[in-house]
């Protein structure tokens, strides 16, 4: 049984205001299972705890309580166990302008994980890098391998970041707002690329976003978070088309919808007339 499961995950942060200190429960009792070939979307507004979940899965934060299980076994937190976990679970960050090192070439960014995770070495490195670049549609690979991040567009950089996440042979990807920094005209391209790779490699993807429209179209299941709690979950069409929880309805009403043209103006006018 291959899966990445989180069980009753809780994360508390200490917050201080003057002399008083308290705890803020950023994530409260969150459980879900990520399966190969499936995409799970985690949606919610800023501060709802969705990125904290991502950080705990990628082991950048330690949960206050609860556990994370890979293939049914608790995950290793240090040494060889941790590095073997990182073989299998990788992350794509939000900002491709910040997550790539401006000093290094694309080839360097991809060689490092290949070497560190023992996927390829020596003469095999070059072909492995080219293969990765081709998989993310950066062709001709020779041309892109020698580029540095500033010589590429945002979408191309994000593709490099995806290739880097795939380099260790990951089975699970955590994508934290992977397209929100990109121009709209290339967002779909990057998402489609992720979807294609997912199909080809049978990846399990955790897609974190506040964009409900892409969450609906690119995931099988949606989990809605609000202030650390899961308020609604279900198959993506069901959650979007037939929301049950008040907060999901608020989120949906806030998303731009071209067919509602002019309605906002009428609402505002009515409001002013009434006051």
């Amino acid at each position, binding site marked *: 049984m291959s899966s990445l499961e989180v069980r009753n995950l809780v994360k508390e942060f200490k917050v201080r205001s003057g002399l008083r200190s308290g705890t803020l429960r950023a994530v409260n009792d969150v459980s879900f299972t990520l399966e190969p070939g499936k995409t799970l979307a985690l949606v919610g507004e800023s501060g709802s705890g969705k990125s904290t979940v991502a950080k705990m899965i990628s082991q950048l934060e330690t949960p206050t309580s609860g556990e994370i299980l890979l293939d049914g076994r608790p995950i290793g937190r240090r040494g060889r166990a941790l590095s073997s976990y990182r073989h299998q679970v990788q992350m794509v960050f939000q900002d491709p302008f910040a997550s790539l090192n401006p000093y290094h070439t694309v080839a360097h960014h991809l060689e490092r994980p290949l070497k560190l995770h023992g996927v390829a070495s020596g003469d095999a490195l070059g072909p492995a890098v080219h293969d990765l670049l081709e998989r993310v549609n950066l062709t001709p690979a020779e041309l892109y391998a020698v580029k540095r991040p500033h010589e590429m567009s945002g979408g191309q950089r994000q593709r490099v970041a995806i290739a880097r996440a795939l380099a260790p042979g990951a089975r699970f990807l955590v994508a934290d707002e992977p397209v929100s920094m990109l121009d*709209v005209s290339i967002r779909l*391209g990057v998402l489609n690329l992720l979807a294609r790779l997912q199909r080809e490699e049978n990846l399990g993807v955790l897609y974190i976003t506040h964009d409900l429209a892409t969450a609906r179209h690119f995931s099988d299941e949606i989990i809605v978070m609000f202030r650390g709690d899961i308020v609604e979950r279900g198959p993506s069409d069901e959650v979007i088309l037939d929301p049950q929880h008040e907060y999901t309805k608020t989120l949906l*009403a806030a998303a731009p919808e071209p067919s509602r043209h002019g309605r906002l103006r009428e609402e505002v006018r009515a409001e002013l007339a009434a006051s």
Partner: protein
Amino acid sequence: MTATTTGPLSSPTHDDHVARLEPVLTARNVSIEYQVDPPVRAVDDVSLTLHRGEILGLAGESGCGKTTLAYGLNRLLKPPAILRSGDVTFHDANGTDIDVVSLTGDALRAFRWDKVSMVFQGAMNSLNPVISVRKQLGDVLTTHRPQMGTKERAARSAELLELVGVDPTRLDSFAHELSGGMRQRVMIAMAMALNPQVMIMDEPTTALDVVVQRGILREIMRLRERFNFAVVFITHDLPLLLEISDRIAVMRAGRIVELDTSESIYARAQHPYTRQLLDSFPSLTGDRGSFVRTGVTRDAAEEEAS
């Protein structure tokens, strides 16, 4: 108004729509160049009329010249950018016409912010971090309304914050003590300080999450009804524009390729590029489009190669 032979695509409904409106800002054949090697023509022969009290959406992908055009309308271009040709006329409410391009010195300073104000891109970060909101709002008033007394200024600042839905007790806060949405509201308050007739908003909600964004849009719409200023709303989020604006201009590579009412753009976009832009947004509640999760029909490698 689209008298140029290479004008943008438009429809008869659009002409009917604008015929009833009174212009407030007219740009004719504006071309703006970045004097680098080789020179880049960021805005190419653009003509545009903004009418009193309307929201005009300016849409297009990154680098198409939206922001450059906005800066041109407001005389904010800095070298290497230069206004090559064209004129911009502001039709003041009192009946006089101001030739914006020829303004210099004090006349230009008096014009900016008083007649046309701007909410900048990344407005979240354009507040001064080391002085309080009170001082920053007061700064606008001392410069443009020197006859105002201290008490009046304080009252006006408080009134402005109230207008945009921020508690006036926040006047003594610093930027880092405010949330992103509140900072954005303060920026809008600042842009409204002198009751301008035109507000240019450059991506005012892009960095905010949907719920906060909705609140701010509603605020802008509400203020527009009350004060009847015109808004140029710049964003690449076409669905959002379709929802809030009266007319939309679609820009591509420095030119306006289509200019029409939002209804027409939504129902029957004429230019292939507009249709492509519309298609790049998956619909929230509608049909699952054919492009979704296929990775085949719209593999964008070729599109972004530019």
